[in-house]
């Protein structure tokens, strides 16, 4: 059963002797231990509209749960998927790639010199930059792609069914889109923002782990950073060849003198 099919059941529906208990005082929770007040406050604070239906009705409770699930899978600052829901999506994508063999790309992006923005213009400006980058990323990818904020100034994007040949183009389009648009941090004041992008494709047909896949993209992100930032580095997709350097070490004469 998928999570979307789970409906909660109020205790009075499952306990035959529920009617023998004293009637609930008006406004008291019908589900044991559930206090909807805090949940409603959280939803209100995050800008969620009123829930449909009679308060505490089945439909209302279901809508409350749906809204809370949505809230707990999003990043508060950007409204993008948060790290938790991103890792779930990544695991699902790995299963899909192992089954279907369709290529899938994972990109990890980091805002360049973000600390400088924070230090020079303050945290409020830093937040505006993060929000603007988040919007730029969401605008640049397909609806089926998942954009997540996975850390302070770090974002990840899962791109299902992305052919290897398009990988560099997609990454480059995202990088350019961010670099093109300075972020307004105060009236009349804008800062230029760039991102470094690392990417790797999931190994087709093979069940890998989310950790391994993320490590591989992180390695490419590190490469992009160390090669000067504001650039994309994707792991080469062909079967990794053995370089002349590696062969040199492999056949180092010491190998065959090691025993005598």
């Amino acid at each position, binding site marked *: 059963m998928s999570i979307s099919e789970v409906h909660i059941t109020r205790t009075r529906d499952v306990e035959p002797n529920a009617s023998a208990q004293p009637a609930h005082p008006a406004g008291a929770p019908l589900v044991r231990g559930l206090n909807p007040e805090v949940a409603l406050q959280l939803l209100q604070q995050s800008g969620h509209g009123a829930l449909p239906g009679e308060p505490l009705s089945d439909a209302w409770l279901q809508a409350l749960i749906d809204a809370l699930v949505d809230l707990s899978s999003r990043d508060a600052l950007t409204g993008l998927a948060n790290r938790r829901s991103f890792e779930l999506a990544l695991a699902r994508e790995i299963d899909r790639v*192992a089954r279907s*063999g369709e290529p899938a790309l994972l990109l990890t992006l980091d805002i360049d010199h973000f600390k400088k923005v924070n230090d020079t213009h303050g945290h409020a400006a830093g937040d505006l930059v993060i929000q603007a980058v988040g919007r730029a990323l969401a605008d640049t990818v397909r609806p089926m792609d998942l954009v997540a904020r996975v850390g302070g100034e770090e974002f990840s994007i899962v791109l299902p069914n992305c052919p290897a040949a398009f990988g560099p183009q997609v990454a480059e389009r995202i990088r350019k889109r961010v670099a093109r648009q300075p972020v307004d941090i105060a009236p009349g004041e804008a800062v230029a923002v760039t991102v470094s992008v690392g990417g790797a494709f999931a*190994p087709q047909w*093979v069940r*890998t782990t989310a950790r391994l896949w993320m490590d*591989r993209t992180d390695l490419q992100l590190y490469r992009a950073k160390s090669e000067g930032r504001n650039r994309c580095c994707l792991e080469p997709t062909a079967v*990794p060849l053995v370089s002349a350097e590696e062969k040199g070490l*492999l*056949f180092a004469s*010491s190998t065959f003198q090691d025993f005598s």
Partner: protein
Amino acid sequence: MMAAVPTPTQDKAGAPPAASHGACITAITSGKGGVGKTFVSANLAAALARQGERVLVLDADLGLANLDVVLNLYPKLTLHDVFTGQTKLEDAILPAPGGFSVLLAGSGMIEYSRLTPTVCDQLQDVIHRVRPRFDRVLLDTGAGISDVVLYTVSLADEVLIICTPEPTSLTDAYATIKVLATTQPRRLIRLLVNQVQRPGEARAIRKQLQLVVDRYVNSGLDKPVMIELLGEVPYDATVRESVIKRELLLECAPGSAAAQAIVAAAAKHLAG
């Protein structure tokens, strides 16, 4: 003749299989072809069977199977028939000389040499179904680093790489280790060096492979890949004779140095 399909027994003496739910599954691969992968698979299986293990060799070289050639078998029923639903799995598991069982790919598998979701599912299903019936399952994969080979290896509990001291074989073994390390969570890779000219050569090869892996592969991983030497099989003229006669080395020249080396590797394999 031994039963082709042993029934699962709970009270079998000896070491329990590695996986609690049945056989320990070992993928045997090489990168380069022609290094004696199928020869090692068949003789290792015979050596394991002699130790009392219920062993199955599954010919996972779907495109160019040749386990039947090595064992001089003319199977009527193969994996192909299982995949196409023309026979039951039980009927395609055949007894082989040497006291182990085989599931041969047979000819006509060319349509399976490319991985599709159907082939993935069928291979996984067959492995799932043979697991409870044996103590050891050896998957004799094809040469190369194709998607079928990588997928087959990903289904196994352990991987054993066969190489020879030749530079081309070493390069391909290294390439295989590199691809496995970066795409699969497995961190222990076993190595068996075939056609060794001088005793101790395999130890030096393992050491050098580990050195290159440490420098070029492990530097990018948070948990390092370790290469463990399972054994070395000396170059031995009797091997060629047994291959040409299409007999198991363990049967036609059990006293040969190569046969002894394979028995020793099997003992080490059983010890974990």
